[in-house]
């Protein structure tokens, strides 16, 4: 907060009014509505609704399909997070080292950040296509009869590859800026003490990158959970069938295709709690880091 502030009886409220009204109508109201509906059973023909307590939650959690989706989401998120973080870290470490052509490398590795997930999804579908896709040809050459959209594992594989590809640039940007903020003096001192550059990386540089890595971990989990919607929607081409979907995609399917309002809302509430937990962890991390510096 500022030391010097204005005081005016009405003005601050007027300044806040546009944002508050949008937040109220398009954020708080829907969020409250999701929580309310999750306790009700909506009549499919629109004849009112009955309060059913936690039944929707019980139904959701006990459904075998839900646990299957939850498992897939867990594995998918872990894979996307792990691969996009480690590939980006490798590239950032290399980009931090080279001097010649550093800015060209940086540009070439970060620009994909601008591509929307569904556009990446469309490119992926074409590249993995059984008839015209070069990646499919490559898989065939390696003896893998890849069938995206038919085979559960192959579909999951394609989704993961596309999601990782799309996420590498943002991780790269953060890792590179983290690496560049490691003081030169620290690096030089380490270089005097230890000859092996690999060991120097794991014992000196990597711990210094820890705050960035923690932050990115949360960002990547959030990305894998939510922002991959466009990729999944394109890979599945709107026909999920027996293919893998994430929890967020299931909220969408059950709510808009299945017309199961209560169930979809209960799933929304479960996701809200998940996001809330992630945010609390994130704030803890940030606070801890403030104490460091």
């Amino acid at each position, binding site marked *: *907060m*500022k030391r*010097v*502030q*204005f005081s005016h009886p009405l*003005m601050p*409220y007027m*300044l*806040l009014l*546009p*944002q*508050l009204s*949008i937040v109220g*109508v*398009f954020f708080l109201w829907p969020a409250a509505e*999701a929580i309310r509906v999750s306790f009700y059973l909506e009549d499919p023909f629109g004849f009112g609704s009955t309060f059913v307590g936690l039944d929707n939650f019980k139904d959701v959690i006990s459904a075998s399909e839900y646990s299957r989706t939850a498992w897939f989401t867990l594995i998918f998120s872990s894979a996307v997070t792990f691969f996009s973080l480690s590939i980006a870290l*490798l*590239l950032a470490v*290399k*980009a931090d080292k*080279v001097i010649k052509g550093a800015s060209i490398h*940086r*540009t070439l*590795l*970060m*620009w*994909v950040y*601008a*591509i*929307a997930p*569904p*556009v990446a999804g469309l*490119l*992926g579908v*074409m590249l993995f296509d059984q*008839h*015209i*896709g*070069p990646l499919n*040809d490559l898989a065939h050459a390696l003896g893998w009869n890849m069938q995206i959209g038919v085979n559960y594992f192959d579909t999951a594989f394609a989704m993961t590859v596309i999601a990782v*590809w799309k996420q*590498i*640039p943002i991780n790269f*940007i953060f890792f590179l800026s983290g690496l560049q903020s490691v003081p030169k003096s620290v690096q030089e001192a380490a270089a005097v003490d230890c000859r092996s550059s690999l060991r120097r990386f794991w014992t000196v540089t990597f711990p210094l990158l820890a705050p*960035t890595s923690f932050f990115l971990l949360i960002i990547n989990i959030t990305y894998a959970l*939510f922002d991959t*919607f*466009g990729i999944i*929607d394109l890979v599945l*081409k709107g026909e999920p069938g027996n293919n893998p979907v994430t929890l*967020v995609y299931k*909220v969408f399917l059950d709510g*808009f295709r299945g017309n199961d*309002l209560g169930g979809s*809302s209960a799933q*929304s509430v479960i996701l*809200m709690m998940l*996001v*809330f937990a992630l*945010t609390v962890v994130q704030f803890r991390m940030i606070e801890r880091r403030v104490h460091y510096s």
Partner: protein
Amino acid sequence: MKHTQFWDHTILTFGALIMLVPVVYALMTSSHDAVSIYKDGLQLSPGGHFVDTYKQVLTEAGGFTRSVTGLTMLWNSLILGLGFAFGKIIISMLAAYAIVYFRFPFGTFFFWIIFSTLLLPLEVRILPSYEIVQGLGMANTYSGLIIPLIASATGTFYFRQFFKTVPDELVEAARIDGAGPVKFFIDILVPLSRTMIAAIFLIMFVFGWNQYLWPTLITTDESLFTLVRGMKQILQVWIGAQIPDTNQAMALAVLAMLPPVLIVVIFQSWFVKGLVESEK
């Protein structure tokens, strides 16, 4: 030393190629004709139908979406990007100004209400959001497309951080000179924030342009489709066709990514700074 530098460059070049090649495929394939792509697969070298393909997807209503041309979709994307960026900047600057520069009852409470929007992404409340916006008669309108997306507080957060770095002496000086809050805002704070506004504008434009889920729900009328929103329809028509117009699908994908990619490449340092700053 020479040896390790070689490997560094090799790894970086390999990484850059992995990023680049899918898009090169899209661009090159869009310059071939449908039949040859059907026969030979996706292309990595330029063909002779570049102008034809783009003319067709931009001006002809047939092909993919049957009732809407690529130009209309491009226009809708532009409206979404611009509307979102302008709306967000105006609203969040005003809110951040109130939060940082005024002391008033319930100030902290309102602050937390606004920032609670950072907790829950749209994805976890899609169904009720859709029903409320539809109930307000805003389905298939530009305002229904844009305004609900502005609810998140990212812009307010950026401006709050920036305003906090503006020296207190400026407010003191303004007050000594008898300038009120309106005059201070317009004559001092807005000019000071010019670079910040421009950076946030571009970040928000790209963000708005790339929206998918919300446009998918709220626009069912094809004349309101954005390019990114249209991706699934483009793909569905592509699957359904005898000899799919892969060149046209790729051309629309190229159009959908071109403006954001250009902006990000040209204003790279702003983006990097904007992204990294948001972490703090």
